[in-house]
């Protein structure tokens, strides 16, 4: 009833190609931003404790959305499958830690972005095999990256400044007189920083994808030989996809350690996490930015809620709930693949299509 394109005329190509051609979509985005920036910081999510909302739901979901965006760029838009996401997040986290120890006075946001650039370089190096191999074979190349990097995080003591624990941990960092990171920082401050970065990165991703580079990725994804024949360079297209995706993943890794967990060890970056991020992309929908949001939110929030409800309402112990949430995740993947192989994003698109005609579909 409210979602209509009737009467919205376009007189320029530019308007046709706008990110949100419908006025309703623009309003929707603004409402979402207002909710994220005003409503949630003030009221939290109704029915849930505020600290829990921030620490266990909002901040991790935003961080994982950045990860999912990164992986979706690689898998959904450029068609290069990767199981090294966990380790690339580790590269982001460890390099951010090193940059912070080498330049202690540098602004933490700059550290995070620099660590994203470092990860981009590492990602490009491990993306080199993709020029020669593809499909399932590429999984092996990225698993090589995953296990090699995990090994390096343990063996190369320089990465964690030779400390005894073998992990990295954040210290208090100030910005404009506010403590923004580290043990004493306020959850709300961290929330705003993560949210702002997420919004900026989403804006960047959507524009890059709609632009020349993004279109070359999609051509490579759809049929690489044909793309090569009509003048897309596989070298630049594939490596730029790896670099861009790793940039996002690196940033999310740095954010995860310094704006959410506070400290991390190798276990936070192992191969099982790579799978979780892959699920976020699949469940959300390959090749969709909206899908990245939905996938990250669903895959992260539902197990957390299941565990919380099982603990507080039914009194099950943590072990059972842990396993139950793993099973649930597996079932969710299979069901979504059967019902709609293109993920939640496609379901959302179908809903929108129906809304246009609702309530008189004929």
């Amino acid at each position, binding site marked *: 009833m409210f979602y209509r394109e009737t009467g919205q005329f376009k007189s320029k190509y530019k308007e046709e190609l706008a990110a949100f051609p419908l006025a309703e979509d623009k309003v929707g985005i603004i409402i979402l931003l207002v909710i994220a920036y005003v409503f949630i910081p003030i009221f939290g999510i109704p029915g849930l404790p505020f600290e829990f909302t921030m620490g266990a739901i909002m901040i991790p979901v935003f961080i994982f959305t950045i990860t999912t965006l990164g992986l979706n760029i690689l898998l959904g838009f450029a068609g290069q*499958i990767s199981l090294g996401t966990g380790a690339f997040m580790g590269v982001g986290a460890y390099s951010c830690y090193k940059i912070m120890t080498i330049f202690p006075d540098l602004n933490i946001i700059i550290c995070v972005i620099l660590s994203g650039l470092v990860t981009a370089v590492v990602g490009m190096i491990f993306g080199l*095999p993709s020029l*020669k*191999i593809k499909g*399932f*074979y590429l*999984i*092996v*190349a990225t*698993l*090589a990256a995953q*296990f*090699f990097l*995990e*090994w390096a995080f*343990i*063996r190369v003591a320089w990465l964690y400044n030779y400390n005894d624990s073998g992990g990295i941990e954040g210290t208090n960092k100030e910005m404009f007189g506010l403590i923004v990171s580290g043990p004493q920082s306020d959850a709300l401050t961290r929330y705003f920083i993560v949210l702002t970065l997420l919004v900026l990165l989403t804006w960047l991703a959507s524009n890059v994808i709609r632009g020349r580079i993004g279109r070359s990725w999609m051509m490579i994804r759809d*049929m690489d*030989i*044909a793309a090569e*024949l009509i003048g897309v360079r596989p070298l630049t297209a594939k490596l730029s996809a790896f670099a861009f995706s790793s940039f996002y993943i690196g940033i999310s890794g740095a954010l995860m350690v310094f704006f959410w967990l506070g400290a991390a060890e190798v276990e936070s970056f192992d*191969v099982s996490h790579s*799978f979780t991020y*892959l*699920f976020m992309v*699949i469940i959300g929908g390959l090749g969709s930015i909206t899908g990245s949001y939905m996938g990250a939110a669903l895959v992260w929030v539902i197990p957390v809620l299941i565990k919380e409800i099982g603990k507080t309402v039914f009194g099950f112990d943590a*072990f*059972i709930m*842990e*396993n*139950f*949430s*793993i*099973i*649930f*995740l*597996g*079932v*969710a*993947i*299979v069901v979504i*693949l*059967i019902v709609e*192989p293109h993920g939640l994003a496609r379901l959302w698109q179908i809903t929108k299509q129906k809304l246009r005609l609702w309530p008189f579909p004929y």
Partner: protein
Amino acid sequence: MEILYAIFIAPFVEMGSYPDLFIQALWDGFVAGTLYGLIALGFVLIFKASGVFNFSQPILVVLAALSLVSFYKMGIPAWISVILVLIMFYVLAWLVERLILRQLVNQDGNILFMSTIGLTFIIIGAAQWIFGGVPNAMIVNELGFPSGSLEWPIFGGGVYFEMIDVSAAVIAVIMIVILAVFFSKTKIGRGLRAVADDHQAALSVGISLNQIWVIVWFVAGIVALVTGIFWGARSDVSFALQIIGFKALPVLIIGGFTSIQGAIIGGLIIGLGEKIFEIYWGPLLGSGVEGWFAYVIALVFLLYRPQGLFGDKLIERV
């Protein structure tokens, strides 16, 4: 200069001066390689017959070993536990076909692959729930496998062959022979190959796809059980076995996705390669290189032979 010496000369000098240790390393690598090959065999069987890249093969290995040990602990005699596990795998194969594969007929290979990742998670959760996540010792002696070790005195030292490793190698060989015969001589085997070649053509001559899938998943389950018993004997039975299972991927790369003998030869290359590298070159990098060296071997192979040693040649058309 010193570093060059340490890389190119010192390891060979060491091999030459302690030949018994070298032979021991070869044997260990050989056994590990056989077992990698067995895991890869499970992948190959399913890929050959249905074109599904079955990511849950490593977890099937864990499930087999774990349920076997758990049944035994419940007081069921060892061999009856084996039969119970086989029945369980038949039911599982049937369920997988009925609930997952049948629903995904005609979907893209990627989607099928991802659905097996989902299956992996379901099995992990269920197995941890039912059997618990505590590492157990494998019931090797109860199954009647010989224990102890043989010593072969040579070059002034000695090489030890664990009896369980010897039996693993023997059983692996027997199983490969049986599978090769099964695939080439029996009616079901011909059906499997027909399905692998072309689903529709196979259907049109009256081969039941669904039945073939159940059979091939069941056979993969049997392979998983054998692998599980022998891996479980080498290290404890726990979910860490799954990480070892991932090593089957580089094996597949080297051997090719569709070749049974390729799986075994690939396994041997990986097993021997990583063992020798770990012992003679590992100390240069700090220990633990076994975790990733297999993937590096596979990468090097990929750059020269993307279809694997025995894989079908890739022909691409636009």
